[in-house]
């Protein structure tokens, strides 16, 4: 496991190794399909424990470093996919010790520095090899996911079947139908092929509505409330423009949506953007639903900022946690990153969406500009609050697969898989922010989620790793063209074939319970186990003591149940053979020692 081996770089355990000569082929873990490219002796400049001499092995998938020092068991295991930028440090005239080498910026909140010898082009070679394999797109090489030959006993690509998921929600019904109008992505190339739309809207209506929505991303159903039948509908902004254009079909279509649950109240539109941004978008042809045109709708702005603000905010978080944690003014530094403030706004927006639907007051339409960043965050978080199914491991996979992957969150652009352009303005940690919100919720409701923190961290690690096809490309149509499901392995195959590792022992299944997290700074926390996990000093206990105790009790319970069954058998045997004497119970089992 990627994160596991890296987490094990605990440098305080100075376990000395006896066998110094390792077999090279054994020294480096290798996935099927992974090939050795080069290896080199380097100095790893560990920000926590100083320079460590080691040998680095580069494959077409990872960078692997093993310490050559006897008193350090340090191992680095970094998929090349996490590399965002490779820089040369120091020049020919550099004098200081270890000042000549490479500085690698990673997408997962760390930097790696290697010092190399000045002679023999060793830095140039390593730079070229790394650049070539970390950024395969620039070198006409395939992304590793297409070379990966791993086999799992479950097929993650089977997890999400849109028809089944809509059927689970009770769809189609009298008011909502499944349409295949986008079967070959001809209506909207960034939407999935299968869409749920109002029964009363014809395919022709949909085509006309598409002309008035940015990138043809028409309002379609994301989720329907099983009882009150209010819905969450997602789309992109209307193309109102400076002149304040109107479109009768779009207006009628929203009214049809409003009427599907036979409510007389207005349709609630949540525009995720700050008001000023929505107004400014008119200049480029976008905008929002005005009161004049949409009489039966009520619009609220949720004040969530754009992808650029989020990117800068995360950069600031990195500044205060890596390599050293800002100590003296931790709280005000944290505040100045605004990261948790953004989290608060996203959660607040999602709570509003969920509350509106749960109370049965009205259906909700959510959009931002294009409906693939903030919109995906809001709909998926609201669904997580409303529908306990999505809080299970498979349910969450389906949620991600549905609201993010199939509805065209631009993973390729936001993450920059295999792309060398680290400064691309399209990059932004929107999905990470969503996972952070999920973590905040799981922190506030520790018994409500089937999955644990490790599950979320694993998803984030493979968001970058390029080992699986799950997060590759920007939309379904592109994935289909590339035959991703045939040619790559799904991340869910890895997770579902070993689910126990990702289970939360406290999970209590509760149907129909709506979860409203408290979106107050008093409760929001920086996710230390993710953002500061490289710092061995901050490393938190795994598992935590309460969890550990609970697992012990669980084991004890299972043992007792077994004993009881055995006793029942023995007792029924005893009835026929009264000579059997029972053994003393106190010899058989430990009594509960837990005190409170």
């Amino acid at each position, binding site marked *: 496991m990627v994160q596991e081996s890296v987490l094990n770089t*605990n440098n305080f*355990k100075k376990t000395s190794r006896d066998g110094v000569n390792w077999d090279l082929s054994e020294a480096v873990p290798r996935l099927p399909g992974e090939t050795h490219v080069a290896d080199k002796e380097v100095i790893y400049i560990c920000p926590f424990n100083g320079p460590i001499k080691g040998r680095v092995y580069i494959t077409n998938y990872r960078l692997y470093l093993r310490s050559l020092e006897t008193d350090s068991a340090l191992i680095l295991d970094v998929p090349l996919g996490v590399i965002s930028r490779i820089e040369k440090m120091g020049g020919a005239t550099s004098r200081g010790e270890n000042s000549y080498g490479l500085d690698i910026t990673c997408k997962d909140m760390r930097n790696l520095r290697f010092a190399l010898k000045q002679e023999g082009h060793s830095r140039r070679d390593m730079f070229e090899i790394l650049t070539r394999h970390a950024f395969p797109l620039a070198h006409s090489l395939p992304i590793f996911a297409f070379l990966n030959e791993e086999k799992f006993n479950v097929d993650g690509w089977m997890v999400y079947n849109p028809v089944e998921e809509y059927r689970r929600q009770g769809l189609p019904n009298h008011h909502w139908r499944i349409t295949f109008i986008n079967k070959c992505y001809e209506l909207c190339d960034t939407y999935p092929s299968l869409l749920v739309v109002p029964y009363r809207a014809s395919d022709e209506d949909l085509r006309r509505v598409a002309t008035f929505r940015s990138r*043809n991303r028409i309002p379609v159903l994301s989720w329907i409330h099983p009882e009150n039948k209010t819905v969450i509908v997602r789309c992109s902004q209307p*193309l109102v423009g400076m002149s304040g254009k109107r479109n009768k079909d779009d207006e009628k279509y929203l009214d049809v949506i409003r009427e599907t649950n036979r409510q007389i109240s207005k349709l609630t539109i949540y525009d995720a953007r700050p008001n000023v941004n929505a107004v*400014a*978008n008119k200049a*480029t*042809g976008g905008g929002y639903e005005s009161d004049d045109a949409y009489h039966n709708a009520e619009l609220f702005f949720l004040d969530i900022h*754009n992808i650029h603000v989020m990117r800068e905010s995360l950069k600031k978080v990195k500044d205060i*946690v890596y390599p050293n*944690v*800002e100590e003296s003014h*931790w*709280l*005000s530094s*944290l*505040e100045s990153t*605004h990261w948790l*403030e953004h989290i608060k706004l996203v959660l607040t927006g999602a709570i*509003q969406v969920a*509350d509106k639907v749960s109370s049965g007051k009205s259906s909700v339409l959510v959009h931002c*500009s294009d409906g693939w960043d903030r919109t995906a965050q809001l709909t998926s978080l609201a669904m997580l609050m409303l529908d306990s199914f999505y809080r299970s491991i498979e349910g969450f996979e389906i949620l991600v697969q549905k609201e993010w992957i199939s509805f065209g969150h631009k993973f390729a652009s936001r993450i920059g898989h295999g792309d060398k352009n680290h400064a691309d*303005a*399209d990059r932004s940690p929107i999905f990470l922010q969503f996972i952070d919100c999920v973590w905040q919720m799981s922190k*506030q409701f*520790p*018994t409500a989620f089937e999955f644990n923190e490790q599950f979320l961290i694993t998803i984030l690690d493979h968001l970058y790793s390029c080992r699986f096809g799950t997060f590759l490309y920007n939309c379904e149509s592109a994935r289909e063209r590339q035959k991703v499901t045939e040619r790559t392995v799904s991340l869910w195959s890895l997770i579902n074939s070993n689910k126990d590792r990702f289970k939360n022992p*406290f999970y*209590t299944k*509760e149907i129909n*319970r*709506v*979860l*409203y*997290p*408290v*979106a*107050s700074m*008093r*409760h929001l926390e*920086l996710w230390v186990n993710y953002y*500061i996990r490289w710092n*061995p*000093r*901050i*490393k938190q*206990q795994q598992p935590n*003591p*309460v969890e550990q105790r*609970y697992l012990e*009790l*669980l084991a004890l*319970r299972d043992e*007792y149940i077994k004993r*009881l069954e055995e006793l029942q058998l023995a*007792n029924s045997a005893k009835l026929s053979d009264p000579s059997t004497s*029972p053994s003393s*119970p106190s010899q*058989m089992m430990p009594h*509960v020692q837990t005190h409170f």
Partner: protein
Amino acid sequence: MLGKGVVGGGGGTKAPKPSFVSYVRPEEIHTNEKEVTEKEVTLHLLPGEQLLCEASTVLKYVQEDSCQRGIYGKLVCTDFKIAFLGDDESALDNDETQFKNKVIGENDITLHCVDQIYGVFDEKKKTLFGQLKKYPEKLIIHCKDLRVFHFCLRYTKEEEVKRIVSGIIHHTQAPKLLKRLFLFSYAAAARNSTATHPKNHTVMFETLQDWCWELERTKGNMKYKAVRVNEGYQVSERLPEYFVVPTPLPEEDVPRFQGHGIPMWCWSCHNGCALLKMSALPKEQDDAVLQVQKSFLDGVYKTIHRPPYEIVKTEDLSSSFLSLQDIQTAHSKFKQLFLIDNSTEFWDTDIKWFSLLESSSWLDIIRRCLKKAIEITECLEAQNMNVLLLEENASDLCCLISSLVQVMMDPHCRTRVGFQSLVQKEWIMGGHCFLDRCNHLRQSDKEEHQRQLSLPLTQSKSSPKRGFFREETDHLIKNLLGKRISKLINSSDELQDNFREFYDSWHSKPTDYHGLLLPHIEGPEIKVWAQRYLRWIPEAQILGGGRVATMSKLLEMMEEVQSLQEKIDERHHGQVALQAEASSLLRASARLSSLFPFALLQRHSSKPVLPTSGWKALGDEEDLAKREDESVDLGDL
């Protein structure tokens, strides 16, 4: 039933827009029954407690879903507490009332718990004290336990308003004589009932035997002896009658400076090193007296400092650590963050929560306390040194640091009885001036600065993580360097290295919860003890969530395991298994709030709380905020 004024109602039928006004206007109050018949809700008086004054038709506000509900009742003041007698508790079911305080009810405020009283005059809030010329329409009481009460007096008879307001002000603010404290009349009236607990394991340290037991328990009896030199408080009233000193110390040394300058034993480590405390000798100008003091101290030091066998390290807490003033100032800023009058105030402060928290310095103080305690632990545990804590009276920071060290090092102190014994030993017998520090006699504000000393100790116990604590200490690095630099310019780095190595190495190993426990002291690990500090704030409650959710799962599992155990026992004895009725302690865990059991459920509906204040300026990111998400033009226009 009492007349119950319900504004906006509970559940889903509320006013269309949430109202964030802090006070309910009279016309908004719809009473269920028009006549406000106050059925006598009986006032529960403790033995010896006397009713002093009362007022009827008082409206108490209950915050609910950003609306406010009013409940009619009677406000009374006794010589022990202020109590509101209203029918508010009917909403709580048994699960919750199980955990009620039996002495102090939900609507009771003991006189000593009152922190600040405000009156509202024409929607303006003013502090109330002394003689009043004009009586307020509303009374707001801020409590030391961070509760905030709002009482509306608009419907109360004028003379009753005068009586209750001046009564409350007088009995909570006027200086008191020690003998007038309620506990004396209580003890006199309830004398017989106090001795009914036969098995109280808490060691009180009131007898020589108690100290001998403690010496024996920690194996300190080789080098230390319990002495009776202060029997009948002949030497000093400040000291306990019995205490422990180094064996070689002549008993006649103790009275020389009324117990000052004597190393008093606190605790012995498994390796034989001891934690000691000493009150400083009086400051003298006269050279001759100084000479006497010096030779006295030299003699005393030899009893605990005999290199190479025994080495003592002196920690002067008066000069090299936090001042009491620092702690008091931080605490008054900190507590203000939790005394929240209404929803608007909660959300207004939410956006700058972290900087507000930081500017109070409270968490930093907690961290410094923990760090100091870890340093001392390192000396005892890793360097095999005795540690002598030195302070002017050895009754403030000495109590704090020495009890923290013991909680970290001695698992016995982490049991309930052990902890109670620790408080008894270090704080009560240690002579901590609770009366002054808590200002129980309402002397004047001069003393106030010395108050909240025992709080860092209680706060550091907060989290179950690592056994008990998580709240933590950093500035010490700078502090240490600054203070020591004059004396030990070379060894300060070494000291820091020792600390780091000890701390890092402990944290890199798996934790033994029955052994040494060191809290984390890095910035992100130091958090507000939410269950205590946020417990009365409805907006901060997570319904069905929080740590209590996992704790109740744990308890349920324990019950299940125990009942299985019983069943197996029964099987063995050939009996028919009784259907073990689970005690359903926390059955309805989904309904418990995150603040359970410190506060009862205050929000009755499951509506979400929504922030009401918006976005703070982004500052230098303003230009980014204006950009569009996609760099390309919009599609088909």
